[in-house]
Structure formats: C-alpha cells, structure tokens
C-alpha cells in the first residue's frame, strides 16, 4: 500500500487527480496484498477495484506462481517485476515486462528488503507518467531526514537502471 500511496502522491504532485487504495481488509505488512492507483486529468469518481490496469507492479515474483498477475492487463501494458532472475513464465503478447532486482537495491541503500521506493523509481522510468522531481518530493513528504535521502537514492538508482535497459 505504501508504494501505491507514494505513486499517487507523486502523480498528485505532478498536477493530476489521484486515488490510491488497498484491496480492503487484508493490508498487513508482509502479507500478500493488492493495492490500486488511478490518476487522471479530471476528478476520479470510479470506486471499483481495478480489473484492467495499464501498469502492474509485482513486488514479490514468487507470487506469480499463485496469482495470474497479467490478468486484465491492457494491450501495450507494462509489467514491472521485482526479481533477481530472468522470468520463465509465459508473457502475454503485446505486454512489455521489465525485471529489476529491487530487493538488492533496497538492501544496498536502506539495509532492508523494502522495495516500495525502488519500484516506484522503476515505475516512473518505465511509464513516463511521473517525473523524477515529483517522485523525490513524494518520498521526502513520506519520510524524513536520512531515511528520506536513502530512499531517494534507492529510487534514483532504480530509475536510472530502468532508463538504461528500456
């Protein structure tokens, strides 16, 4: 949920209306959860969950075994997967998959395997929907002091990495 919130905060900072919410009732740290983000130039009124996303971020690639994470993804959609290995799963046609070892990057910068900010950086680079300054602003709004700067560094490395490969 933190990643969804941060992406929405960054989108909002970029001047659009944004909405972020968890799959309700199961949002506990560490448990498999889903969270959703919508943003638009006009007010977002729709309240249903998202069934046909433009982008999917998979924070833990081991979940791909249990969940069809590609379900509903629109033609031309982008999937960002946190994994240190190449994906061996069949990828639907018309879908672009970007893999990134976000866990190692998070460990390097934060000393913890918490990938919210690295994956946010990867998303910003892959989608082009969020500018780097808005992303950094969102991180500094959520965290403070040294922790904020560590997270900014993690997000920036992921951003540059994805810019480099895509």
């Amino acid at each position, binding site marked *: 949920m933190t990643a969804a919130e941060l992406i929405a905060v960054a989108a909002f900072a970029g001047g659009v209306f944004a909405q972020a*919410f968890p799959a309700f009732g199961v949002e506990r740290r560490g448990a498999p959860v889903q969270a959703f983000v919508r943003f638009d130039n006009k007010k977002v009124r729709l309240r249903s969950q998202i069934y046909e996303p433009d982008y999917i971020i998979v924070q833990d690639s081991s979940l791909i075994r249990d969940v069809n994470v590609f379900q509903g993804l629109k033609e031309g959609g982008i999937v960002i997967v946190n994994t240190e290995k190449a994906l061996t799963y069949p990828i639907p046609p018309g879908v672009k998959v970007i893999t990134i070892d976000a866990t190692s990057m998070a460990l390097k910068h934060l000393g913890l395997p918490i990938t919210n900010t690295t994956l946010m950086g990867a998303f910003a680079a892959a989608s082009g929907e969020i500018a780097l300054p808005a992303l950094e602003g969102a991180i500094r709004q959520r965290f403070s002091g040294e922790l904020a700067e560590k997270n900014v560094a993690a997000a920036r490395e992921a951003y540059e990495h994805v810019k480099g490969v895509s």
Partner: protein
Amino acid sequence: MMEFMEGSHAVAHAVKYCRPQVIAAYPITPQTHIVEALADMVANCHLDAEYITVESEFSALSACLGASAAGSRVYSATTSQGLALMFEVCFNCAGMRMPVVMSIVNRALGAPLSIWNDQQDSISLRDSGWLQLYAEDNQEATDLHYLAYKVAEDRNILLPAFVCFDGFILSHTYEPVDTLTQEQVDRYLPAYRPLHRLDSEDPMSFGMFASPDYYMEFRYQIDKAQKDAAQVISRAGKEFGEMFGRDYSEMVEGYRLEDADCALVAMGSICGTAKDAIDEMRRDGKKVGLLKMRTFRPFPEKEVRSALSGVSRVAVLDKNISLGAKGAVALEVKDALYGTQVPVLDYIIALGGRDVRKKDIRGVVEMAEKGKGDLFYGLRQEVL
C-alpha cells in the same frame, strides 16, 4: 488547500477543526484510523479535548451523552457491531436532544462476520431520531462534519447527527481533499452554546420518565425537529457554499436527470461509480440519470418527488435490506412517489463489500428497462 490524504485522516482533521471538547470512542475496523489520529492529536496537545478511553461502544456513546448534557461539544465514531451496541444510547441521545455528532464508517452487520462495506448499520438506526448524512467522496465526508455540527446544534433542532461514509471505499482511500483552516472553520462554526445543560447552580434533569399523558408529545417534538432540520440543512449548506465554494443546500443532487428516462437513486460512494457508468450509457444513447441522496434523515420527500416524478422508471440501489420487506431507500422513495405512475424497482447491491463496477450499474439499468427488479443484484446462482 488541496491535500492528498487518506479519508480517515481527512475526517480526523475536520473533526479537530470542529473543536470537540470531549471525544469518547472505541476502536473498530474500519473506523480505527480516525480515532487513532484524534487520540494522537489530543496526546500531543494539537487538540484541546478530553479523550475518554472506554471499554465498549455502549460506554463511548454514554460518555458522549453525559458530556453533551454537561454542555460540551462532543464527538464519537463507530461502525457496524459497534453501532449496534450503542442502539439504546442512540435513542437516548435523540430523546434528550443532545447534538452529538458521530462518524459512521459504514460496514455490514454480522452474522456472518463481515468487516466490509454496506450501509446496513446506519440504516438500521433510521428510526432513532439522529440526522443522517451520506458522503459520496472524501471531500463530502469532511465537509459534512462541519455541516452536521451546525445543524445539530441549531437551537430549533438540537438533534444528534450521523455523518455516514463507506468503510474502506472512502475511509482507506487516499485522494485529494480541500482542507479548510482553523480560522475558516471557526467563522463557519462558532463555539457551542447549549440551551440547557447540567449545572449544579441551576439543577435540571434530562430523560426522566414520561407518563402516557406526555410521552407522545416528546416523540412529536423530535419528529418535528427532524422535519424542521430540512430547512436548517438547506440554510447551513448554502452558507457553507458561500464561504467555501461547495454548496450543500440541496439534500438531494441530480446528475444528468433533466431528460432522463431511467433514474437511479443511491447514497454514498456508489454514486461516483454510477456517474461514470451514466456517462458511458449516455454516449450509447441511453437516457439515464442519478438522484444522489445526501440526506436520509430527515427524508427529503418533497425533493425526491419533484426530482423523480417526470421519469419513466426509477431504479434504487440499496446497500441495505430490511429483511422480509425491501431496501430501506426504495421503500421511502416509493412512499415519496405515491400517487404518481412512476414504477420504482429495488436492487439490493454491494452487501458485505461486494465490489460494484460500471458494468453492474449498466446491468441494473438494463433490468429496469425490462421491468425486472425488486431483487438482490449479482447473486451466486447456487442460492437461487
């Protein structure tokens, strides 16, 4: 200022700006984030209020009732089973004419246990004498708290008020909210000046027994205050609009209703999804509109009648069920339209948190066009 925040936190900040002097609440999902935030504000001296921790919802509202009788502005928040446990105290608050304001973060009632959203909890207290306002989004969820205090404390009304907003769907969603400043709220909502209060210098009693010679007159006066609240809501909503640009003078709100053939009627967050679905159906040439009910108590009978008497059919989306009868909103919409030829069809929908998509709204409209209604929408076939 537009701020991006969680619904619960936006509401907690609005409540803070209302300057409640006493808060008593018992945490329960999905209301928890509101009372956690308020407890934090009190503990850190950001809010000068007495926060009473209690062992149950019954005690929470009892503490509010006592504090209100002593002349304080009070606040509580609850949902579902918590509200059920307050049942008796709810009637007492209204009967003693205490302007308590309480957030109801709407959630289904057990059994079976469900932490997810519908509106059965507040609807089940429809006869208690509390005013009931319903929010479509987090902007309304915050604004309606200011309005609720203003109306509840009006000396011609003096009734408690629920501000209802959908659990999780609004309470746990982050979106932009235009937050007011303390100075702005102070201008709109001056300090509470009780008409009567517990005072050892001038002793009086509240809620003593009434013999058969007098009981009905008390009930009549509560009912009259409910009905008089319509005008006060309208005036307070207009004043809010003049000060802050968001006009709440109408208890109901029409969306693309002017030339509508089929009118949906709904309360709460489902209205947003319905509006998007209506725009799509309009593009396909279907004349569909929405009547959003922001006020359920007092029931805006005249407004409903005037908004709907020109349409060919009405489809009510009820997130509640009066078991053995119909959805509560449909029953009252039918009553408002009595004597017209407009058919009212009822759809029990989204109980216990079942997600509602645009295609479901379209599904309801298609059924209504065929005259098929008065049913639970989207049931699993095996129970039929």
